């Protein structure tokens, strides 16, 4: 019989005991009998019956004490105890319940009622069993889930923290479990100097929100390391997220490109709340407004990588936050909001304390501390003050070609959308002798290329960049002219030579389709490092071993030399 139960009968009266065990056996259960409480407890320990019929008053140990001990031994499992009693006083019945009794059966016994009670108690017992089973199952699943999250977080931390968030010019606030809130914070040095910083906020919570973080971090770090520009990274990140994320999951993000040498900030904001650029002595606030849909929404063909460019001074600060800051609510359900945030900026006396003041204002507003908001501050500092780790290479570079030359010509349709620098850099960094000056190489090539493209091919006047307004106009004109570009080229001629002792030389010549320009004048006209234009050319001559140009200004020549290998 499927629901045959072992049932313990504790009854000191032999006739009653016999009657009860006969009833129980006739119902298909197995009766175990004890004639006092002590026997009952011992039998319970030995046989673990499923249900107990317990006389209240027995010699040696009464039913109340036996019931208490049995309930203790049973632990979480429900072992129903039905008290057998002709006790009629309320007080005695209460004692039965207090001792752990689940029901009563009055004498004289009625077998129909006893059978019904056994069935009812067995249903309760099974229910409890199911609940316990499910509780344990849930606990195991939860443990499993937490383990998975720990592993996911550990793996992710390795990827995410390969960047430069610990750089002294960056301050940030992030929950230890931000990954599972969908918040993502990435920062990496560019090979050419400067850094890329990304604050992202994936839709949703938990694993679905975390799932896109890994590929986005991977794109961000690998492309930044290879020298790709912000627009390239944005396009690739968008395309990748669009491809892999389900509909409805996307990433609101702001990507910053800080160039310490060129003193510019490039900003692309897709769906995050306005960040702020705090500029100059006066602390003018420039909102960094979202002008795009989040990453992972648009098809690659319709994605817009257009970003804004702002000139920077040393000490200028950029603030970004996820919507957690603005949406933080107080006890009345009011959101912290834009206006309160601006008030913190207005009230601020010392810019270096702003970050703490914002954080404190949010905590004060909410009335308690929480760590579920993401916030970031990046300060423009002198690049030398940053402790930049040297670039790492996965191969030894010893297999590289040692004596070669190559020429590349990039034409109008390429110039519009393709960034040739990462490709050229990979080629050149195969030369071991050049690796020590990889940063300078990146910077110089970036300058050579933008010089050739912007001043040569599309004929922009760099003196426009004299002030902030002109700066904006310059970049506006740049994207307009590039969009209309139909003719033109930029050529790189590269020549690598290496001597037996390992010393060597890279000669680069750049030509473009522009009319040429007077380099000497350009250099002379920009004596100050603090001006916005002409800085590029000065950088080139500072960073390379040699830099010269023909009379007509067409075809800048730059040389890098390296010493014999130790």
């Amino acid at each position: 019989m499927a629901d045959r139960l072992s049932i313990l009968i504790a009854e000191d009266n032999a006739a009653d005991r016999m009657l009860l065990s006969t009833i129980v056996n006739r119902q298909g259960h197995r009766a175990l009998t004890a004639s006092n409480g002590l026997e009952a407890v011992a039998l319970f320990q030995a046989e673990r019956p499923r249900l107990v019929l317990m006389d209240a008053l027995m010699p040696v140990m009464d039913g109340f004490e036996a019931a208490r001990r049995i309930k203790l031994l049973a632990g979480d499992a429900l072992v129903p105890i039905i008290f057998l009693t002709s006790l009629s006083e309320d007080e005695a019945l209460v004692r039965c319940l207090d001792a752990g009794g689940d029901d009563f059966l009055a004498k004289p016994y009625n077998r129909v009622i006893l059978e019904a009670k056994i069935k009812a108690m067995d249903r309760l017992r099974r229910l409890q069993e199911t609940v316990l089973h499910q509780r344990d199952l849930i606990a195991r699943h939860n443990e499993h889930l937490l383990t998975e999250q720990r592993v996911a977080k550990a793996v992710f931390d390795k990827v995410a923290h390969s960047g430069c968030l610990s750089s002294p010019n960056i301050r940030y606030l992030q929950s230890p479990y931000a990954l599972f809130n969908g918040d993502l914070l990435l920062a990496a040095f560019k090979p050419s100097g400067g850094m890329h910083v990304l604050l992202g906020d994936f839709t949703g919570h938990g694993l679905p929100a975390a799932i896109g973080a890994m590929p986005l971090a991977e794109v961000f770090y690998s492309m930044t390391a290879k020298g790709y520009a912000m627009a390239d990274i944005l396009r690739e990140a968008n395309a990748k997220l669009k491809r892999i994320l389900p509909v409805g999951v996307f990433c609101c993000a702001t990507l910053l490109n800080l160039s310490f040498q060129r003193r510019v900030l490039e900003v692309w904001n897709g769906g995050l709340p306005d960040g702020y650029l705090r500029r100059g002595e006066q602390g003018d606030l420039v909102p960094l407004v979202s002008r795009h849909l989040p990453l992972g929404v648009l098809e690659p063909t319709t994605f817009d990588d257009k970003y804004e460019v702002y000139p920077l001074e040393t000490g200028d600060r950029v603030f970004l936050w996820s919507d957690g800051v603005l949406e933080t609510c107080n006890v009345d359900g009011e959101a912290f909001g834009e206006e309160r945030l601006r008030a913190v900026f207005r009230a601020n006396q010392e810019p270096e304390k702003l970050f703490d003041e914002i954080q404190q204002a949010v905590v004060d507003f909410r009335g308690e501390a929480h760590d579920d908001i993401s916030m970031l501050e990046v300060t423009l500092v002198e690049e030398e003050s940053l402790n930049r780790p040297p670039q790492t290479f996965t191969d030894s570079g010893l297999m590289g070609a040692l004596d070669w030359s190559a020429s590349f010509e990039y034409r109008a349709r390429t110039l519009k959308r393709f960034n040739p620098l990462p490709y050229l850099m990979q080629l050149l960094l195969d030369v071991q002798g050049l690796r020590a000056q990889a940063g300078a190489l990146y910077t110089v090539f970036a300058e050579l290329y933008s010089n050739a493209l912007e001043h040569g091919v599309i004929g922009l006047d760099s003196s426009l960049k004299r002030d902030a307004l002109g700066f904006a106009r310059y970049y506006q004109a740049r994207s307009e002219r590039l969009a209309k570009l139909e003719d033109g080229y930029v050529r790189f001629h590269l020549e690598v030579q290496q001597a037996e002792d390992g010393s060597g030389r890279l000669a680069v010549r750049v030509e473009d389709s522009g009319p040429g320009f007077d380099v000497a004048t350009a250099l002379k006209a920009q004596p100050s490092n603090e001006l916005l234009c002409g800085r590029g050319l000065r950088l080139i001559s500072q960073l390379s071993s040699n830099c010269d140009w023909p009379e007509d200004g067409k075809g800048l020549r730059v040389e890098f030399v390296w010493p014999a290998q130790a």
Partner: protein
Amino acid sequence: MSIVHVDATVLAALQDFMGEEYPVLLDTYLLDSEERLRMLREAQRDGDMQALRLTAHSFKGSCSNVGALHLAALCKELEEIGRRGQPDEAPTWIAQVEEEFARVKSLFQAERARFTG
């Protein structure tokens, strides 16, 4: 209200239900009851009202189960005396219980006789 010494319908139901075990149940009841009576006398002799109460309670239960209704009622009185701690009252009631049990016993022995041989 007439006194019911043994409820015949209870016995009929027990016989029907217990089958072959019916005479054994009767034997067990009689044997157990003799022991209860001995314990009642002992408790009275020792003036142990708690023991008197417990024994009477237990005796009452088994009497009610076999349909010895009047005996069960007498046990209940005795239980109350024990509970109230009135040793002076005990002897009269114990005597009544003994008298009633003798009657029940002879009735059960007659019932029992139907199954022997």
